[in-house]
């Protein structure tokens, strides 16, 4: 039971998950060469931020709903961003015949 009490969800547990997600997101962004993969990394960081907001709202600042609202907007914005990003990826794919972002190196200098 004591071991379980250690896992009684509190602020630090949730923020810990968030930090792990952040690290994963950064790693995904930096390792993936597929543009969609990079987008997934971004989603991970956004989710990490969402967890933070909700956790802080729930465990620390629970006299208002600011954090939850912010998370709501993050979700909306993530969808919007994904839509435009994917349209651009598609366009890129049509022009370059690949989704590998490393092929996009004509502009440089």
């Amino acid at each position, binding site marked *: 039971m004591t071991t379980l009490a250690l896992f009684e969800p509190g602020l630090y547990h949730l923020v810990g998950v968030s930090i792990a997600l952040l690290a994963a997101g950064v790693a995904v*962004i930096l390792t993936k060469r597929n543009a969609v993969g990079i987008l997934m990394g971004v989603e991970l*960081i956004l989710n990490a*931020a969402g967890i933070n907001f909700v956790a802080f709202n729930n465990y*620390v600042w629970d006299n208002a709903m600011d954090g939850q609202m*912010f998370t709501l907007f993050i979700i909306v914005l993530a969808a919007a*961003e994904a839509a*435009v990003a994917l349209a651009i990826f598609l366009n890129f794919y049509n022009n370059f015949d690949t989704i590998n972002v490393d092929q*996009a190196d004509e*502009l440089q*200098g």
Partner: protein
Amino acid sequence: MLLSDPQWLPQLLADLKLVMPEVILVVTMCMVLIVPFFKKGNVVLPVFVSMFGLLMALLYTQGIHLGVMDADRTGQVFTNTLAIDPFSSFFKTMLMIFAMLIIVQWTLFGREKTHALDAPDFLCLLLGATFGMCLMASANNLIMIFIATESASIPSYALAGFRKKNRMATEGSLKYVLFGSVSSAVMIYGMSMIYGVSGSLQLSHIAGSINQMGMTPLMVVGLVGMFAGFAFKLSAVPMHFWCPDVFEGAPTEVTTFLSVASKSAAVCMLARVMQNLGTIVIDEQVLIGIALGVGALGAVTATWGNLVALHQTNLKRLLAYSSISHAGYMIMGCAVLLLVDPKLILSALLFYVLVYMFMNLGAFTIAAVFERQLGTLNISDYAGLLKKSPVLAILLIVFMLSLFGMPGLGGFMGKLFLGVGLVKAGTLGTVLLGVLLLNTLFSLWYYLRPCYFMVFATPDTQKQLPVIQPLRPALWAILAVCCIMLLWTGLLPAITSDIAQDNGRMIVSSAKRQIALESEHTSTVPKRVVFTVAQ
């Protein structure tokens, strides 16, 4: 204010009047989208509608502006999510004018390459981005900052790739969207930390919590993350990498739009955050620390941009790096906002933005003409252009010299006012001023390079450039407006800077309230000290 409050509706309606320009923009956007249903494939009508909408918004902004100036209202509407004050109104006015000029530029250059059915899309995206930038200028809490930034960015991604079949444009937009989404994710993560420490999304409350808790490490993480997002919009080092690529790839009118509007909106946003911190935070150490960080960002950005620009051979890329360095100067201005009389810096920033808008518009317009008519953006190809088309060459020289900061042109006055602000900010400001001057010196070299080629270099006999065809009157009008504005702001800056000074005022009313609260609790804490130059 909750829905159950009986004052909800009256308050809402009262507030709605103050955001009328934004509402008009949205309505215009919808109108632009509806127009094709009546006249399919018509370009003139949507252009007309959007110009009209922008004009209306502009007029309404001025109306509000006067109202705000007269009435002693807080100017913070919708439970403090937006701040409608002279500063933001002035910026919005400039933005609307600029958007109108961009639309003119687009009808001159971009329209032919755009399918007639796509014209409403372009205008809608442009208006959407303008809408987002308006909100950026008056965003007063984290969620507004976040959502305004996004609504300025996301249409910009699409705009950058508007020529879908163009490989360069596509590549540019890909880089833009990836870089943008990553940095906005970082910004949001930073904001979550800020919220975690301060428990509020209001800028003034956040600053108040810094007063209470001091500068906690988590707040530092949050601020760094948030400023990283700002840095992306400002294209500050190391978030500048997208800037040259996107600017080179995107259609010139979009490049012009991004280089001026997007950056200056971000400057306004940064200024507002800094202003809130500066007014409310009492601890000098904290203020100096933040100023130091932001100032370092500005200094590095300016220096980096200038040094890299030294190597550029492509006119558009050169202008892109130049815009990075100009962003650096403006960031420096924002940095010392914490340490001196904010009105001084805010008015200097407004003036700078105004001048910067015209000189960049002029330079990019001429770049577009060259790109279109000569088919090259390589600076060394412009040899002997002064003889062939003297007026264009002279105008470009004027714009370049203004960007450099030649006395007698607006660019100099902008730097002068900024410098005066910097010099008041003690040691840090003096160091930043030194950086500014040094950078101005650096920049002379690359600004003069196109001029050198046009005036002195003998053209390569092998490479015969086509003759520049006579330009359309509207184009001359744009160039003339830019040139006249630069001369005006350079020779008679008094009037313009007066206007800027009148408008260099931000309302941080809830902040003042906060201060009152603070002083009730902690009356022993001294009021913040305004640093002055040690004479």
